[in-house]
């Protein structure tokens, strides 16, 4: 915003942009309904349980599933908190060799989806894998690791894949904290650790709670990774009931159970956050970092290296090795040596990701502009409702969409149209719809933040010059939020490309994407073939990580070095 002179327009007069357009309010409400109905349907299903389904499940798998899910959630969240929070503290408060570099390298694992990380370590550590082979060669045939396909390994993999959420939020919270608070605690007689415990940690609590909630949601969404490790969670059950038995009623019931878990997570986050709203405005001096030296410095560097190594470098190298091996194996078969399916599935992935990204960006512009042009507080609430799909686990959205499609099928049937069952058996439309619901929040937050930087008077000016609201959006809002829309497109496309649970539940019969292919190959322990597609996903997922977070985490140049 270079043209608007500073120091203008700080008046308290309510800005209402032509005082509210019903059409735009309706548009925002329509998008909110689109997003909220799938989730709402499952919420209704919680209240109206189908007794026959539950009694069967209660007698069989349900109790152990509930215990497993709870254990997995608690352990993963705890480990991710320790990793993410600890590393944020380490890079945020200390200076050691490589500290500046690690501050953003530690985000890279965000680009390795858990279902990729999981099969990398299965391949490495399983009985036939290189590690155990090496152990046997060294110590004899009886030597081996405990069973790799176990709950603790699932926890480790999920925590390594999700700790960057905690890390990012904790880093932000630490950066926001001003030196004054910490120094006040020190001056009042607290040692560094005591000050951390009594001041820094409580101040970072809301961020840690938010990070923990994100990790819990990711864990709850996942049913691919945990299946590698033979861990039976409620989300796995949703997948098995739907994909194995096509029992929509039972799948809906169990998905509503997933939703209950999600609601508990959200409730716990609210409790953990309490009434805390700690904002220490920016601009103030940050806490002076402590310079580590000698052995302590190298321990710090070592810890960071190990985490980045395990969570990013090792899996990427392993994937590359597998990809090369697969290529050598297949030489002589095809001209290119490339599996022909690779390109097909890549195109499928890009198609779905592209459609989703465009859909989300378009709706985000409608919602953000509609919130501005629609006036009224209720429009704002509607806009928030439109982002609900990101706050609940993927299977909940997927089964909710499935329910809508089934209802549409029935309606078509009852009018005598011949395509009964077509929608449920899966169309690309259903999948893209679910993805838009799931990822709209990503696009909305980005576009809204962009539009917030466009002064309200800009909208007013265009209106008073005779432009209709639609023209205002086209000629003023869109050109000014272009970069925000670009970021939204990238974020959504990448997330849609690497997403697995929803596409597994909703893909049309025979429709494969890279993510689905990786999962299938990995389930069959065909690591080498899975190498290239998995590496592709990681490469694509790196784009937003590098683009967005490297800049945000940029460390100020160290004085005197």
């Amino acid at each position, binding site marked *: 915003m270079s*043209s608007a002179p500073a120091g*203008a327009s700080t008046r308290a007069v309510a*800005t209402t942009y032509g005082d509210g357009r019903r059409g735009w309010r309706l548009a925002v409400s329509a998008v909110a309904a689109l997003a909220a109905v799938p989730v709402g349907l499952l919420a209704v299903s919680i209240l109206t349980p189908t007794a026959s389904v539950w009694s069967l499940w209660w007698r069989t798998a349900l109790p152990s599933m509930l215990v497993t899910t709870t254990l997995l959630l608690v352990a993963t969240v705890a480990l991710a908190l320790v990793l993410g929070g600890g590393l944020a503290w380490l890079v945020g408060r200390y200076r050691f060799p490589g500290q500046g570099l690690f501050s953003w390298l530690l985000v890279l694992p965000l680009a390795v989806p858990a279902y990729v990380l999981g099969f990398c370590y299965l391949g490495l550590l399983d009985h036939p894998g290189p590690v155990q082979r090496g152990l046997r060669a060294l110590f004899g045939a009886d030597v081996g690791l405990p069973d790799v396909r176990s709950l603790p390994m699932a926890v480790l993999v999920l925590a390594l894949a999700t700790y960057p959420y905690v890390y990012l939020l904790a880093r932000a919270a630490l950066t926001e904290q001003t030196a004054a608070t910490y120094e006040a605690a020190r001056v009042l007689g607290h040692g560094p650790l005591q000050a951390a415990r009594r001041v820094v940690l409580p101040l970072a609590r809301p961020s840690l709670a938010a990070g923990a909630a994100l990790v819990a949601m990711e864990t709850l969404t996942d049913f691919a990774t945990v299946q590698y490790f033979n861990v039976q969670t409620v989300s796995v059950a949703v997948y098995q009931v739907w994909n194995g038995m096509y029992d929509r009623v039972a799948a809906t019931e169990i998905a509503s159970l997933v939703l209950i878990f999600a609601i508990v997570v959200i409730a716990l986050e609210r409790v953990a956050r309490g009434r805390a709203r700690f904002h220490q405005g920016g601009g103030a001096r940050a806490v002076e970092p402590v310079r580590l030296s000698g052995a302590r410095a190298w321990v710090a560097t070592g810890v960071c290296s190990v985490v980045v190594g395990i969570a990013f470098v090792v899996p990427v190298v392993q994937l590359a090795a597998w990809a090369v091996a697969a290529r050598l194996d297949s030489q002589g078969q095809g001209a290119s040596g490339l599996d022909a399916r690779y390109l097909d599935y890549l195109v499928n992935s890009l198609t779905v990701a592209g459609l989703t990204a465009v859909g989300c960006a378009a709706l985000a512009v409608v919602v953000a502009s509609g919130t501005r042009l629609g006036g009224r507080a209720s429009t704002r609430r509607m806009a928030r409702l439109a982002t609900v799909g990101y706050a609940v686990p993927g299977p909940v959205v997927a089964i909710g969409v499935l329910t809508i499609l089934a209802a549409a099928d029935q309606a078509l049937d009852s009018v005598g149209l011949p395509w009964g069952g077509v929608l449920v058996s899966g169309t690309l439309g259903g999948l893209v719809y679910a993805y838009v619901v799931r990822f709209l929040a990503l696009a909305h937050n980005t576009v809204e933040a962009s539009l917030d930087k466009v002064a309200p008077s800009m909208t*007013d000016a265009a*209106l008073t*010059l005779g432009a*209709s609201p639609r023209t205002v959006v086209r000629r003023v809002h869109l050109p000014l939020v272009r970069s925000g829309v670009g970021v939204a497109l990238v974020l959504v496309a990448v997330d849609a490309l690497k997403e697995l649970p929803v596409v597994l539940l909703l893909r049309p019969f025979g429709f494969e994407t890279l993510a689905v292919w990786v999962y299938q190959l990995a389930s069959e322990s065909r690591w080498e073939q899975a190498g290239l597609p998995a590496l592709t996903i990681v490469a694509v997922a790196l784009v937003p990580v590098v683009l967005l977070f490297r800049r945000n985490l940029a460390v100020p140049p160290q004085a005197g070095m």
Partner: protein
Amino acid sequence: MTSAAAASPGPVLALRGVIKHFGATAALDGISLDIRTGELLAVVGPSGCGKSTMLRAVAGLMRIDAGQIMLRSRVVAGPGTFVPPERRAVGVVFQDLALFPHLDVTDNVSFGLDRRRRGRLGGRRNSRRVAEVLEMVGLEPLGRRYPHELSGGEQQRVALARALAPEPAVVLLDEPFSHLDRNLRATVREHTVDVLRAAGATGVFVTHDQEEALAAGDRLAVMRAGRLDQVATPEEVFHRPVTRFVATFLGEADFVPGQRRDRHVDTVLGTLPVTEAGSGPCRVMLRPHEIGLDADPTGDAVVTQTEFRGATVLHHVRLGEGTAVRGLRPHTSPLSVGSRVRVRPLVDHPLAVFPDLTRVPNVAPEVLER
């Protein structure tokens, strides 16, 4: 300077009992106002008095709770009627100018033209109008510049040109000079007034700067807490304020007690002519330039404080019976604090007179303020 306004017929913009509440506070508390064609009206008042709310209501950027707004005799806001801003033909120069940063000067100025004229002929007429308006504001060589490539004063002119281009019924200017440096402000203001006059435009501009309001408006509307205290020419508002608020807001004023006899008031400063006939105790308004101070060891007034004003020095003086007044002396011959003076009214016209509420028992404080 008032000739354009004097010659013109009926109101181009009229407000009738306009009310707007934000929660419990009334931002507009029954505003009635007529603005004549070609007139430049300054709306002046302290921050938060509702003057910007009034502009937003006229522009259609905000609905009103009650009353009526008419533009060119058409009701644009009133019971059951609300014409949205894009159909009101009102030009606005926003406080932050709100130039479109992604458009160059020409595209900014033609923004309001595009939708009304289509086709090649329309396009040619548009570019002619843009050239015309840019010439009017003296920016014709800068048409291809972007807003961020212009100085503050130039941006101001683009905003004015953009508002004028569609030939609106009325141009509203919301604190249009507040973002400019103080030394630039007067120049830009004069230029803006000249352009508005040359364009024959009707303008309403809002300001909290009394000097600006007195210098630029054909008429002034003095606003306080959602109400209009007085709407009149600058001279009349300055010399014959109808409330004490108007008197003090538009300049320094002191109120000397006295006894009114018809059109004269007997005070400690002698008998002074006043604007309104009456009788009994009252207070006469005197501004510092109407108070002469002569050093006189036998005088019964004492200098209590001095303020350096550049060319002049403002002296606070306590009269013998306790009344405080302020008077000016050239900076070459200031008087020192504590010196005795004789106070001499320099009056060549009847003075404003207010009831002496301090001597009336049981007067509510808000009445006293008036």
